């Protein structure tokens, strides 16, 4: 009986030793490595290198010193979640004439390509987001950005995309790609962004 108690005490200690949070920073699909901070009540570690990891075993202890894990170790720990990741979303931009919802001629063939990529993904989860530049007042620009988003949505629907798979939004001049002063014409901001998820 006594042995048994000791056995369970040891197993308990081992389990306690294992429990905690392991964090590993890895490159994204484009190869970019970001940064992550891991903070407990006692302190913080910052990971900023590919494969860098730390372990927070207890809330009142500082996370362990940063250690770089090799790819075998990362695969052993995270192979399953890495193998099951959904394909990253696709992003496209469609550009427009000045002050209008008329697409630039070169943007039209792109919509057919976008439609095909939506079909291939079997996705029913696409956002269409209209934007404008800063010429004209904000209300007018909201209207223009909505008209742009709707004309893209209508073209995609006319090609064959189901309307209930589209989420249409418009931000007017509030979310530019290129920041400009007010009343500046900027072709890159006269756009509709499409995200296929």
């Amino acid at each position, binding site marked *: 009986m006594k042995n048994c108690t000791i056995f369970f005490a040891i197993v308990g200690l081992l389990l306690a030793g294992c429990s905690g949070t392991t964090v590993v*920073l890895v490159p994204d699909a484009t190869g970019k490595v970001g940064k992550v901070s891991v903070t407990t009540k006692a302190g913080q570690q910052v990971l900023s290198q590919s494969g860098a990891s730390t372990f927070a075993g207890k*809330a009142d202890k500082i996370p362990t010193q940063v250690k770089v894990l090799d790819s075998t170790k990362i695969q052993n720990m995270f192979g399953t979640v890495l193998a*099951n990741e959904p394909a990253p979303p696709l992003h496209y931009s469609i550009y427009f004439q000045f002050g209008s919802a008329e697409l630039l001629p070169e943007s039209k063939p792109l919509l057919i390509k976008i439609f095909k990529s939506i079909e291939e993904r079997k996705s029913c989860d696409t956002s269409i987001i209209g934007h404008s530049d800063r010429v004209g007042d904000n209300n007018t620009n909201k209207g223009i950005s909505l008209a742009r988003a709707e004309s893209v949505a209508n073209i995609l629907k006319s090609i064959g995309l189901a309307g209930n798979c589209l989420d249409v939004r418009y931000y007017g001049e509030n979310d530019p790609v290129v920041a400009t002063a007010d009343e500046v014409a900027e072709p890159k901001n006269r756009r509709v962004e499409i995200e296929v998820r």
Partner: protein
Amino acid sequence: MIKMLPCFVKKLKIVIILGLTAVLHQPALADENYIGMIKTYQPLAAVLHAGKEIPVNIGAKLYPGDTVITQTDAAVGIIFMDGSVLSLGSETRFEIVDFLFKPAERNVSFTSKVSKGTVAFTSGAIGRISPESVKFITPTSTLGLHGTKVLIEVK
């Protein structure tokens, strides 16, 4: 499906009025506010939504406050409205504590809780707009993600 505040408020009012006169038609309202969708699935997993357990399938929509729980050998892949990508391994419990995505107003945040299991996460537009705003809470620590991909194991 137009997402602007005045329109949403109008719809909300209509829903409230309908709610007073008839059974509240929750899905119609909830549908417009979904924040993520399940893209890959290996059974068995469940989503806890408003205190109820919902079976999981590809194309299922997720909302703030939802918890995803996976069993042995299960896996769930999710893409959120901001384009961030999440993969959950087996025996994992993941809760969407807070998800706010209003890029035009620069009003964004994404906080989630991992109580156990394994997670791979790649941040999206919320992380680009406001790197301080993507957070994970685990039993022992808080993670602040400044882009882009991180792996988490909670035992």
